[in-house]
C-alpha cells in the first residue's frame, strides 16, 4: 500500500464517524451527512495522490463534506422549505461549545442504536454511519443481499426522520439501559465475526471482530466511567487475543485446552487484563459488575493460565455462579457446567447439562458439550449421537471440522 493509500485508509478509520456526526449535527439529516461524507472521501481518493495528503486530513474531509452537503441542499432548494424543515432531525440542545466533538460521535452512536429500531437495522446503520463500512461490505459480513442491507439502512433512516428519533445522548437516568443497547449491537457484530456462520465463509471474520473492537474502544473513550463498556472491550480483547490459536492450519477449531498459548497475542491480553483489574478494583469499591465484566473476568482467568492445567477452575465457577444470578439464561448454565466438569467430574456436569435439554435442544453447543462429557464417561455410542446432532446444527466451518474429527476418533 502506498503512503497516500495508507493515509486515506487511516483517515477513513479515524475520521469517518467524526465527519458524519458533525454533518448530522449541522444539517440535521443522516442522509445528507452520509452522502456528503462518502463524496468527501471519494474526492480524497481522487485528489490526495496528486495534491498530497493535507496536513490535517480530518479538517480537510469535514470542510469538503460540508461543501458537498451545501451543494446538495442548494440542488434541492426547489423543495418547499417547510417540508425540508420537517425532515430535519430534531435536536433541542443548545449549540455545542467548540471542542465538544466527541459528543457528536456519541450522539450518532445512540441514534443508530436506538431501541425503536429493529436489531438488524441498528447493526447495519451503526456499521454504515459509525464504522463507515459500505453496504456491500455489511452484506458480505452478514451473508445477506446487498439490496437487503440498503433497504434496512434506508428504512431505519426514514423511521428516524418520521418518528423523530432524537439526535442526542440520552439523559442520565436512561443512559445505562441505552448503553447496554449499544453494547448489544457491538457484541453481535463481534460474535458474528468470531463465530462466522455459513459454509462458504472464513471461520473467523477478522474484519468484523476488528470493527467491533474499534467501536468499543471509541465508546470506551467517550464513556470512560462505564464499567460494562470496559467489560465488553476487555472481553473482546481477550477473545481476539486467542484468534490465531483458535483455528488450526487445516481450518479446524482448536479448543481452549488444546490451544498453543504461546500464539496468543500478549499485547491484547495485557490490555484486556488491565481493564479487568480496573473493574475488579471498582467491584471491590462496591460497584456491582454487569455481565460483560464478569465474562471478561472469566476470560482473564483462562488467559492467566500459562498451561491449561493451571486454570483456576474454582474461580471460573465462582464467576459463573455470579453470572447465573444476573443472567439465568440456559446458555450461561451450559458454560457453567463446563467448569463443573473440571471440578466435580463429567458425571455431575452431564446431569446439569441434561436439565437444559428442553431449552437448548436446537443449540449446537449443547450437543457438543454433551458429546464431550459422554466421551469422557466412556459412553461412545451416546457420544457419537450427540456429535452427530452438534454437527448437524453447527454453522461454523472450523467447528464442524473439529466436531467431525472428535466423533470419528470415538472407539
Amino acid at each position, binding site marked *: 500500500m502506498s503512503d497516500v493509500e495508507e493515509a486515506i485508509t487511516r483517515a477513513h478509520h479515524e475520521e469517518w464517524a467524526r465527519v458524519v456526526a458533525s454533518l448530522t449535527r449541522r444539517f440535521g439529516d443522516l442522509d445528507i451527512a452520509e452522502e456528503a461524507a462518502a463524496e468527501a472521501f471519494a474526492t480524497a481518493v481522487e485528489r490526495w495522490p496528486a495534491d498530497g495528503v493535507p496536513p490535517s486530513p480530518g479538517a480537510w474531509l469535514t470542510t469538503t463534506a460540508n461543501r458537498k452537503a451545501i451543494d446538495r441542499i442548494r440542488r434541492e432548494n426547489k423543495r418547499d422549505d417547510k417540508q425540508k424543515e420537517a425532515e430535519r432531525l*430534531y435536536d*433541542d440542545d443548545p449549540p455545542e461549545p467548540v471542542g465538544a466533538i466527541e459528543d457528536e460521535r456519541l450522539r450518532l452512536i445512540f441514534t443508530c442504536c436506538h431501541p*425503536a429500531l429493529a436489531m438488524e437495522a441498528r447493526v447495519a446503520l451503526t456499521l454504515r454511519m459509525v464504522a463507515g463500512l459500505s453496504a456491500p461490505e455489511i452484506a458480505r459480513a452478514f451473508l445477506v443481499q446487498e439490496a437487503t442491507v440498503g433497504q434496512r439502512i434506508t428504512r431505519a433512516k426514514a423511521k428516524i426522520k*418520521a*418518528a*423523530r*428519533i*432524537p439526535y442526542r445522548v*440520552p439523559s442520565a437516568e*436512561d443512559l445505562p439501559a441505552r448503553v447496554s443497547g449499544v453494547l448489544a449491537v457491538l457484541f453481535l457484530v463481534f460474535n458474528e465475526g468470531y463465530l462466522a456462520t455459513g459454509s462458504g465463509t472464513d471461520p473467523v471474520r477478522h474484519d468484523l471482530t476488528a470493527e467491533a473492537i474499534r467501536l468499543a474502544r471509541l465508546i470506551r473513550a467517550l464513556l470512560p466511567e462505564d464499567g460494562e463498556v470496559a467489560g465488553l472491550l476487555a472481553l473482546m480483547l481477550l477473545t481476539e487475543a486467542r484468534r490465531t490459536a483458535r483455528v488450526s492450519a487445516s481450518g479446524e477449531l482448536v479448543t481452549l485446552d488444546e490451544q498453543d498459548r504461546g500464539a496468543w497475542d500478549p499485547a491484547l491480553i495485557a490490555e484486556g487484563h488491565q481493564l479487568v483489574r480496573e473493574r475488579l478494583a471498582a467491584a471491590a469499591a462496591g460497584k456491582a459488575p454487569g455481565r460483560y465484566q464478569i465474562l471478561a473476568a472469566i476470560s482473564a482467568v483462562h488467559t492467566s493460565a500459562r498451561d491449561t492445567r493451571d486454570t483456576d477452575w474454582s474461580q471460573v465457577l465462582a464467576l459463573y455462579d455470579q453470572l447465573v444470578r444476573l443472567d439465568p439464561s440456559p446458555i450461561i448454565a451450559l458454560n457453567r457446567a463446563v467448569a463443573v466438569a473440571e471440578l466435580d467430574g463429567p458425571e455431575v456436569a452431564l446431569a446439569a447439562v441434561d436439565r437444559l435439554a428442553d431449552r437448548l435442544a436446537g443449540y449446537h453447543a449443547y450437543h457438543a458439550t454433551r458429546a464431550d462429557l459422554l466421551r469422557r464417561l466412556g459412553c461412545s455410542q451416546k457420544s457419537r449421537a450427540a456429535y452427530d446432532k452438534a454437527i448437524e446444527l453447527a454453522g461454523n466451518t472450523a467447528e464442524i471440522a473439529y466436531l467431525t474429527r472428535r466423533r470419528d476418533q470415538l472407539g
Partner: protein
Amino acid sequence: MQYLVSVIDDKSNPGSTDRQPAISAFNERLIAEGYWVFAGGLADTDAATVIDNRGEQAMLSDGPFVESKEYLAGFWIMEAPDLDVALKLATEASKVCDRKIEVRPFQ
C-alpha cells in the same frame, strides 16, 4: 410533534377493567405537563360500521374493517418534542391502562 398512542387490547386475553381511575389521573398529568391533545376509549368493535364510497354507491358493512384477536380499544394523541419523550409517556400509559401500546407519529 404529535403521536398517536394506540391502546391495543386482546379479545382472548383482555386487560383488567378497573383502570379508569388510574387513566383519569394519568390524563390530568398529561394536561398539566402539556402533552395532552386528545384521548378517548372506544366502544366494542361489534359497534363498528365500515363505509366504502369509492364506487358508484356507498357500501355499508357491519363490523370492523379487519377482524382480529387484537384490536384498537382507545387512543391518546400526545404532543411530544421527540420519540424518546413519547415512548416514555407510552411506557407509563401501558402500565396505567394495563394494555399494549403502539406509538405512531403523525405525518
